[in-house]
């Protein structure tokens, strides 16, 4: 079992990073740390995806020296997906950061539990 994990070390690393990011986002009370957790989580998925597209011994999918055989190059689709994913991830991070700044201006803390409690008192 352990040897399989070592053999697929990119995927293993990606899953460990995903778990770290997921738990940070879910359990950490600090908004900035939550955003960092989210970025770790997203990056781990992109690592997983990129590792799926890599084929040892093959080149980047840019036609050089007139070689057009598919066997010469790595799979370009995961790289395209990773780029798309990064764009989405950046947008989400930007919105979350903007939101954190707004919340800090209103409640003077980045602790989500405290923010929720203060907002609850406002409603009452």
């Amino acid at each position, binding site marked *: 079992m352990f040897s399989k994990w070592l053999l697929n070390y990119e995927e293993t690393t990606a899953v460990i990073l995903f778990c770290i990011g997921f738990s940070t986002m879910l359990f950490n009370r600090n908004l900035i740390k939550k955003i960092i957790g989210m970025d770790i989580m997203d990056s781990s998925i992109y690592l997983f995806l990129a590792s799926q597209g890599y084929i040892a011994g093959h080149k980047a999918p840019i036609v050089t020296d007139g070689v057009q055989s598919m066997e010469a190059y790595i799979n370009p689709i995961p790289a395209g997906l990773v780029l798309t994913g990064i764009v989405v991830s950046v947008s989400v991070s930007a919105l979350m950061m903007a939101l954190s700044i707004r919340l800090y201006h209103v409640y003077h803390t980045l602790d989500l539990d405290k923010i929720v409690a*203060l907002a609850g008192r406002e409603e009452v």
Partner: protein
Amino acid sequence: MTLVQNFPAFCILLTLVSAVVTSVLRRRSAAILTGVVLVINLVLNVMTLVYTLQTGESYVYRMGHFPAPWGNELRVGVLETGTAVVLLLVVLFSYLGAYRRSSQRIEPTKYNLYGVMVDLCVLSLLALIYTNDLFTAYVFIEISTLAAAGLIMAKQTGSSLVAGVRYMIMNLLGSSLFLLGVVILYSITGHLLMSPIHDAVAQLAANREYRIPLDVTVALISVGLGMKSALYPFEKWVPAAYSNATITSSALLSSVVSKGYIFLLIKIYVRTIGLPVIEALGITDVMFVFGAAGMIMGSVAAIRARTVRMMIAYSSVAQIGYIFLAIGLGTMDGLMVALWHLLAHAATKSMLFISSAEIDEASGGTHLRKDVRGAFYRSPLAAFAFSLGAANLVGLPLLSVFVTKFMMGQTAVAVGGRHMIVTLICLAVSTLLNLGYFMSTAMSLYVHDGEMVRRKPDHLVRFSLAGFLILNLTLGLCAGPIYQMFLSGFSVFG
């Protein structure tokens, strides 16, 4: 290819262009453009529905005519267009009915950006309904999340910002689980288009290969989309989001945003993985348990709510429970019931939100004990619409949710065993709880409490409430033919 076949793709592009243009317009022009684009989308989708009904088959639209695996596809059939038409009607009525109230609560210079968010919600809804590509679905899930967060935070009060951030956190966790599921599925099948994945998964299941990755994939996708749809116990963001957002936002969130995710989940079960494989993996049992718990716990929370909006918000959790319980039955009939309830709930819940806003205006608040008593004498149309919505969700015969409950019971009996017993008990308990909070509220609207000042709603609100009433009555009184139409769509959905 006929002209009509291009309409779904055109609608998506049109809404995208509208979102960009709306961002630079003034408030009034932005509001008009968003409304006009909604009407155009509706008309084009009705035309596509008529076309698909005539042909009786679904068709694949290749974006840019590139074949798989490089190309991106839309798949259009009766089920997709029918769902799009009903949900677009709900969006249109919600948008018009709450326009004045929502625009008063949003900074005038930023109302155009609110229009952008509405456009993006519609865009992602259409894309999720029509897309045949899993990664495209992920991208539009994220667009939908960002747009929905914008809608929640539009009032820019502290509470709405907090509601927005809680919504974002829970939904981003769901999106990431979904993406990881898609990536694992891609790594074991080599495809992102749904139909080729279906063939590859069937082969893997037949050869008993990649059993654990398949299990993990289906679990990740189901839980991810469940979290985003406010499935119990991932519903903690719901009350704050629905009660602190503008009324348009609440109506759109409850009836459109979450429904897009559920439609996608049904599509993944039927078209991508295949129901026999899903059933063999046992994930439907997990959905069944979550759904049953949601039906009861959502209603219990609704009983304890102090305002009408909170009550409607918690009731959404219960209704989402109905949908997931039907999915959890693990049969095609169960999925059809889930789809029907998706539409019935969307039409009813938005009507409840819009009518409660009008009752709020007429009564000066929506506190369940203080404000809503005698609201019928202050705002008859809104009170009647609220009563009809409440009666519908309780499951009164001749209305659409009755069809859900009847068909769900029938499907559960056909499935038999523990599923049948749990479903029937949950249906009975949930109906009693619904009666407890919805009918008591509806009845209090008709209590004459001294002198009442009648308030005449503006023409947009009247148009919206009349539209909702017609839509709900049509879904209830013409349930047979409409259900059959969707059933025929289901046969070519996979």
